[in-house]
């Protein structure tokens, strides 16, 4: 790092980058701000930015109408459950692909990804009929399974790219030192694999959290997650910007907060492990 950077250049970079960052973030910021306005302030002309009477009435109104905690809980179970189940199935598969590759490994990986291209709408009817037959409609179990299947290719793909980074020599060295297979997995491999698994987990929780087609169409009351919660606010009667903003904020806040606290893993997760 021999290059010296002038303070002026750094200042310019900073200003420009912050401006762009705020611009990209603005729609979310605006939604959060609007959620604290009254309905009249939400549509006032010219728009008010910060100087308005902050109110919580929209949150109260939304909570009174729908039981937010239940939707939230369902979202947590479905997103978390499907990701964990996916990891349990994907880890052995990715493991063997990474450490015992065959000439079909890459074809299998790409085939798995291609299953994600099936248009969900086209198979809604068949899946609905299967769900009825198996009694899975409006159950969290059913959604956990479906979302796991939808995201499984991505999970396998990501884990595969992470595992491939683990050098084989370390394993051999451990074996030379007389480590048993159990010790090898527990003390050598696991610590090296954990960051990759954590990133995969985070990213897939987000993907499952935001999935809106199956979660809406396969649930009614008991298993409905936050995507269904939002569907009851999308166009109510009359002035609704503030209430819509409050409901939107409630739907995205948990995942935003999770994302912010686990930024480092998430950033590497967002690259799908494909780039180092």
């Amino acid at each position, binding site marked *: 790092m021999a290059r010296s950077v002038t303070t002026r250049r750094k200042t310019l970079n900073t200003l420009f980058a912050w401006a762009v960052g705020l611009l990209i973030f603005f729609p979310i910021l605006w939604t959060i701000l609007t959620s604290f306005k009254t*309905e009249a302030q939400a*549509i006032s002309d010219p728009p008010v930015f910060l100087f308005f009477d902050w109110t919580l009435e929209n949150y109260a109104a939304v909570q*009174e*109408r*729908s039981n937010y905690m239940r939707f939230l809980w369902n979202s947590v179970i479905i997103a978390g459950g499907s990701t964990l189940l996916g990891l349990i199935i994907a880890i052995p598969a990715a493991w063997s692909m990474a450490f015992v590759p065959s000439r079909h490994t890459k074809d299998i990986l790409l085939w798995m990804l291609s299953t994600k291209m099936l248009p969900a709408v086209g198979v*809604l*009817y068949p899946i*609905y*009929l299967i*769900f*009825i037959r198996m009694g899975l*409609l*409006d159950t969290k179990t059913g959604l956990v399974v479906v979302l796991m299947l939808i995201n499984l290719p991505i999970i396998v793909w990501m884990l595969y790219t992470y595992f491939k980074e683990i050098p084989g020599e370390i394993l051999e060295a451990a074996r030379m030192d007389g480590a048993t297979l159990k010790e090898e997995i527990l003390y050598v491999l696991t610590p090296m694999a954990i960051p990759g698994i954590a990133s995969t987990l985070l990213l897939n929780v987000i993907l499952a959290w935001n999935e809106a087609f199956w979660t*809406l*169409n396969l649930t*009614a*009351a*008991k298993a*409905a997650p936050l995507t*269904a919660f939002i*569907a*009851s*606010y*999308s*166009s*109510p*009667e*009359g*002035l*609704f910007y503030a209430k819509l903003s409050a409901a939107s904020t409630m739907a995205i806040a948990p995942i935003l907060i999770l994302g912010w606290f686990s930024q480092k893993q998430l950033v590497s997760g967002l690259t799908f492990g494909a780039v180092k």
Partner: protein
Amino acid sequence: MSLLNAFRAATALTVLVSTSAFAETLTIATVNNGDMIRMQGFTEDFTAKTGHEVEWVTLEENVLRQRVTTDISAKGGQFDIMTIGMYETPIWAKNEWLVPLDDLGDEYDAGDILPAMAGGLSYEGTLYAAPFYGESSMIMYRTDLMEAAGMEMPDAPTWDFVAEAARAMTNKDKEIYGICLRGKAGWGENMAFLTATGNAFGARWFDEDWKPQFDSEAWANTLNFYIELLNDAGPPGASNNGFNENLSLFQQGKCGMWIDATVAASFVTNPDDSTVADKVGFALAPDTGLGRRSNWLWAWALAIPAGTQKEDAAKEFVKWATSKEYIELVAAKDGWANVPPGARKSLYENENYKEVPFAKMTLESILSADPTNPTIDPVPYVGVQFAAIPEFAGIATQVGQEFSAALAGQQTAEEALAKAQALTADEMEAAGY
């Protein structure tokens, strides 16, 4: 004293036990309209009376339709009660998907349901869905703007008068638009309005041999008139405005006139939400002197899917929600202007309700719509702003998209009509007419 208390407690306990023995949890799918959301607020009253619990699935209209139609046609059994309309009821009843509601008891007084509503929600003379609220459409207009324009709204205006008034009221610099009409594509959005308006212009969907009629002069007149009027006196982006968007515009004081569902009257005159609550007048939907007006007829109704395990409890809920008592319950808490309108005759005979400013015009609008004889030339279908055949929703949404694109200026009215004619003919042929 203590003995009395003990007695009370014992009775309460008995009531609790006797009801909870049959207590069920009902899953009810409903639309997120204001009256339904108010109904959710009164759920406790129902639970207290019957012991049954209620799980609400409240969805936006399009999502709701998608969910309930999939569920009932695949026999998914997800819902014990579904909120459906006049379009679905006869089609579903014909498929034997609904529980007949002809045994709701004397106390319920089914004879009190407005005949127009009962007719639209029946199949072969049997009621299959109980109306929660009913509506027609009418003109809501700003009395102050009308006066400023130097005009006076008659009770039953013509389209020419409405167009003239709309252009006179428009002041685009001040964001006052003379007329707000539906433009958003959808069979329940712009096509509801345009089909009903077409009726007044002598247009119809099909002739008696089920041949589509979009190549007729009457449809060309309807669509051209509508597009020119909205271009001159409508709000920007009218082609994206549905009921909710227009309601919001009207409440903000940006519309001179708005022709839409009669239930909107209580929202635009509610001072909590509307900035123009005290300046709204009402008139019948316009005509062109040919003998039909441009108003539609619709009801949101509660129906019970055949095959539900909880038929008895579901019937109790339907009875409760569409009863005279429910109307009184709402009136006591939120005032007479906010009760669900348009379902029962007795409501319009109620002295308290007669004082509500839009009551009379709502009733007259409902009474002037005739689903069995909606058009000037004879048609083979039932329904004012729709044709009650299974294919209609799909076709009309596509036609609506063509008309919406014409309103947005992306094609001419003639092109839109030609496409509408072709695609309707194609779909009807596919359906085997």
